Structure formats: C-alpha cells, structure tokens
C-alpha cells in the first residue's frame, strides 16, 4: 500500500511561513489534484513530497516510512514538470533511460522498460530524436515516459499541461486519464490551475488557500457542498454569486430573506434555532439561477450586459447594495434569450441549490 500521509506539515522560507497545518491522507491509487490561487503553495507542497524542498516541520510518510530526510531518488516518486525539463542533449531514449542507467540496471532491463513506456505513449518513432525536434505535446509525453520508466509508487505532476495549446491540452488530459486507468495501483498528485482538469481527473481535490487546506473532497462534493465561501467561489466558473441575507426560519430546511420586500426563499441547508435572525451569505451558482415572476425571490435587478453563447445566455447584473462579496451578479440561463438587456428581472434558486454560509463557513460543515 502506497499510502502517502502528510502530518502537521509546515513550510517556511526563513521567517516567511508559506504553508502550515497540512494534514492529508492519500490512499494508493488515488489521483489527487491540488488547486488554489496563484502563490498559495501548491508547487511548494508538491516539491516537499518530491524532496526538492525541505520540510520545515511535520512528517511525510510513504508506505509507512518517514521520508522527510530521504533523498528524492529513494522516495519512490517521479515528477513531471510544467516546462518538461527534458535533458536537451540526450535523445528521447536516453532521456527515458537516464534514471535506470544511473541505477545501474542491465541493458535488457532498460530496453524493456523504455520500449514499454514508449509503446504506452506512442513515442516509438521518436526514440532517437532530440527533445528540440519534438512538438510540445510530444515533449510532455516524453517527460511522462521518463516517469513511467522508473515505475514509481507516486507520480507528481506540476501543471503538466499548461504550456500546451487548448486542443492539445484536452487530448493530453484524456491520455493522462487513460494512463491512470492502465495503472490503477499508482498514486498520482497533480497540480493545476485548470478547473476542468481538476474536475475531470481527480478522485479527490485538495483546495489550498491561506497557507492551509481549505477543503478536501471529491469534485462533486466540492461543487455541491463547499465548506466555505472561498471554496464556493473557487470551484465553478463563473464563480458562485454571494448575496447578503437573513435567516428567518430554522430547522432541517432554512428559510431566508434576502432583501426587504423580496419575500422568502428556502435552502436545504439545516440550521439551528440560535441561527434565527443571523446575517448570512447566500450562495447561488450562476447556472442555478432561475428567472421567476413570483413575489418570493433571491435577487432582482436590471440586466446590464447579456452574453449569448448559443448554448447558454449569461446575464450580468450590477449588485445593487454595498457590503456584498460580489460586485456583479451573474446568471446563466439555458438556451437563447433575446431582448433581456435593460430589463428588470427577478431571479431565484431551487432549495437544494441555495448555499448558506454563516461567518464564511457553510451551515453544512459546522
């Protein structure tokens, strides 16, 4: 079992603390994706697992063995870099064989391993080329091949697709997903900025923010039940709308009043009796906004801009009241809607799509 466990891990550069209280259990065969805003420490955490950065405090163990002071090559990990990091003076074959050569493996063993990886990644025809004679996508495949050849317990990817163009990114993403299926016992940790990559590849997503882990969960868990307003707005695009409101009814179902005269709407989030009258933030994703004629609604406003994408129409409202987290409220309606610009529209959300946060924390996760 290649369980990878991070316990109370801390990272500081001198006096500057970058990560703290990182606790994470990763099971064999999982594909974990780290996401988070730029500079939140995703790469740093990955590099600590790789052994390229010292762990300031806490422990990292793989398969029950503490790895804090084990050199990178002996941790049973392999890493794929954003910039490919191929050795420019070596052919594709030598790039992939390098680690095995260093380890003193026999010629036959090396040829078998390189051949196998090349076949998996369709690199056969390119084995004798130099990296500079390959396209970006092929280079990234060589980088992945270099990892596969070593047969590591844990694969580490740091934004492996972000240097590729959009079409190639999709293709390579699918290849990585297929690769993962071929190797069900290998654990992968994957850093990305791309929501779609995170949602489609991950068995679990780790959202990093404010020097720590904001939430860990399956992609849909994060989407449907975000722990806090940060995760709520980070996952999903466009970001979730957050509206100010007040709890006017508690219980298994919470009743909310969002604006004077807006009537009442309900959420499936449970609340306690002491929440009665509390000021809360009510989140509704743009795609969950429904236009309504009813007297009970979540939000009413004038449509500033419409974006007709064919498949959906996006409506942009400017938020009418100060003190809200979003400047702009966005609604995403299915299909084509003409002539909405400048109109006054009332919007609401279905009870299971209305998220309630008190002091930034979801009522679900208290």
């Amino acid at each position, binding site marked *: 079992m290649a369980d990878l466990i991070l316990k109370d891990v801390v990272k500081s550069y001198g006096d500057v603390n970058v990560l703290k209280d990182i606790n994470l259990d990763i099971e064999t065969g999982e594909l974990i994706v780290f996401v988070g805003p730029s500079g939140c420490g995703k790469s740093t955490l990955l590099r600590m697992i790789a052994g390229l950065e010292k762990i300031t405090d806490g422990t990292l163990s793989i398969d029950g063995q503490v790895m804090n002071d084990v*050199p990178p090559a002996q941790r049973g990990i392999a890493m794929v*870099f954003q*910039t490919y990091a*191929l*050795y420019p003076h070596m052919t594709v074959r030598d790039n992939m064989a*390098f680690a095995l050569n260093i380890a003193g493996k026999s010629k036959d063993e090396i040829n078998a391993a390189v051949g196998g990886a090349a076949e998996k990644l369709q690199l056969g025809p390119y084995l004798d080329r130099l990296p500079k004679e390959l396209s970006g996508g092929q280079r990234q495949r060589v980088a992945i091949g*270099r990892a596969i050849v070593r047969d590591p317990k844990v694969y580490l990817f740091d934004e492996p697709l972000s240097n590729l163009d959009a079409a190639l990114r999709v293709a390579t993403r699918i290849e990585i997903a297929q690769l993962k299926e071929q190797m069900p016992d290998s654990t992968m940790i994957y850093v990305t900025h791309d929501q779609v990559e995170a949602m489609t590849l991950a068995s679990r997503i780790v959202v990093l923010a404010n020097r720590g882990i904001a939430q860990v969960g399956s992609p849909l868990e994060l989407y449907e039940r975000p722990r806090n307003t940060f995760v709520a707005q980070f996952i999903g695009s466009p970001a979730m709308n957050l509206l100010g409101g007040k709890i006017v009814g508690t219980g298994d179902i919470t009743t909310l009043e969002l604006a004077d005269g807006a009537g009442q709407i309900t959420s499936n989030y449970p609340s306690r009796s002491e929440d009665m009258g509390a000021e809360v933030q009510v989140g509704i994703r743009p795609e969950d906004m429904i236009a309504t004629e009813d007297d009970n609604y979540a939000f009413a406003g004038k449509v500033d801009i419409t974006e007709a994408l064919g498949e959906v129409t996006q409506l942009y409202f400017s938020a009418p009241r100060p003190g809200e987290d979003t400047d702009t409220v966005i609604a995403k309606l299915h299909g084509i809607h003409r002539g909405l610009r400048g109109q006054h529209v009332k919007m609401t959300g279905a009870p299971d799509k209305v998220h309630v946060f008190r002091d930034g924390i979801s009522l679900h996760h208290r």
Partner: protein
Amino acid sequence: MSPLLQGIITILVGVFGCVGYFYAANLVLDKVIFPARGPHAGRNINRATAVRPWLFLFPAIAILGIYLVYPVVGSFVRSLYNRAGDEFIGAGNYATLSGDPGFQTALFNNALWVLFVPAAATFIGLVVAQLTDRLSWGNIAKSLIFMPMAISFVGASLIWKFVYAGDPDIGIINAVRDVIGLSPVDPVQIPFWNNFFLMFILVWIQTGFAMVILSAALRGIPEETIEAAIIDGANPFQLFFKIKVPQIMGTIVVVWTTITILVLKVFDIVYTMTGGNFGTDILPSYMMSFMFRDDGRATAVAVVIMVVVLPVMVWNIRQAQKEMR
C-alpha cells in the same frame, strides 16, 4: 595640450565625425544622387536602398582594410624577400625556417602551450565556477580569481618572477624547498618543465575569463533539468558531468578556442621571463628575435602563426554564432 584634453577631443571628433558622416552621406544619397522625385522616383528609391548599406559600411571596411588586410598581404610579400628586402627569394625564408632547430623547438613548445593552457584554464575555470556558485563568499572568490585578467602580461610575469625567484626569502617555491631542506632551484631553467612554469602564468590570468563566462552559462541551465536529474538519482558528479557540462558544451568550446587564439599570440610572458632562453621559445618570441634583424624571416614566422590561428578562429566564430542562435 594636456593628454586629457586630447583624449576628450579625439572622442568628440570620433563620435560626432561618425554621426556627421552617416547623416551627410545619407542626405547626399537621398537628395542629390537618387532624389525620390521626378520621372524615376520609384527606381531611385530602390537604388538608394541598395547603395545605402555599402555607404554605411564604407568607413569600417576602409579602416579594416588599411589596418588589417594590407599588413597581412604586406607581411606575406615581405616574407618572400631576403633579409635586406631587395632580393626576391620565393619560399627561401620558409625553407630556412623548417631547417632551423630553434624554429622546431618554438613550434613544439607552442603546441604544448596550445594544448595545455586552454585545457587547464577552461577546466579550472569550470570547476571554480561550479564550486563558487553556492558559496556565500563565492562572489569574493570569483573577484579574486578574475583580478589577474586586469594585469598586463608583463606585469603578471614580473609578479611570477618573484614567485619563482631563487632566493628562498623571496620566491615561494624555494621558500618551501628551504623549509624541507632542499637547495634552491631556478624553475625557469629546468629543461622542458620550465615551459609549464611559464604556461602556468597564462593559466593564472585566463582562468578568471573562463570562470566568468562559464559561470554565466551554468546559471543559464534550466533549474528543472537539474531537479529532474536529482529525482532520477544522479549524484553531484553525475549531475555535473552528465547534465550540466553537456548543456554548456557550446560555451566551453567558445571559451576554449578563444583562449587558444590568445595563446598563439602571447609573447610577452616568454620574453619577460626567459627571453626565449633555456628552450622556452615559442613562435611569437622566436619571431621577435628576428625582428629588425631579418624582417624576411620574421614575417615568414608571422605568416606561419596566422596560418595556424586561422582554422581555430573560423571554428571559434562558427561556434559563437551557433551559441547566439
């Protein structure tokens, strides 16, 4: 006139003279010779465009021609004449040279210099560049090693005359010998090995150059390739020789050949240290020993040196261009 004022005037005349030349030449070309109006305006513009590069290149080409090409041709012609310069003797000087044991010694020694100095300076420079890279006081060490670059060859030779001095109170080599009870020697008189004592002076000077260039090249290596190699299990030696050095091979070659060309021109060190005695002559110092006495022979040696340098030079320029791409 004070030298300072002279210098300033020279700079002003040079700089503004150039600007003035380009401006005036351009003006004459566009307004007088090929004016962009009248019935042939289009044709004139095309012609002016074709002529302009040559106009602008003219000063450089002319000066290079006068000060480089003419002397080369002139030297070659002179080398075909006798000592007094009044009788054409064809390859006579070259024939005499090839039969002269002094010339053979100089040629052999020069070969030693060309093999040893660039290799030693480049290798030491490379190792020092790598070793000082991570040190907190690395930059101080680098400055110290770079400093000899600023000393003239004659000055450096004088310094090393002290190092090699026979008096144990002055020369460090003999001071060491004195401590362990050996009698003093004169390093520059030890046959064969004295060449290396002289070469070492140039190595001492040139290591700084190699170090600075190679240190910049080492820093230019993408950090990720090094990290990837660390993950692949490379130890520091493998990292250096299998990942770093191959990636800066182009720069190493440029440094190596640049020093090689310099070595083929060095004469001051030998001249100052031994005057070419004790079997330490090299081609340039050998040439100097004939200068003003037998210009025919001296120019013949000069031509030999040029022929030897030329291929290295061409290769060097090719490599440097490849590096820039």
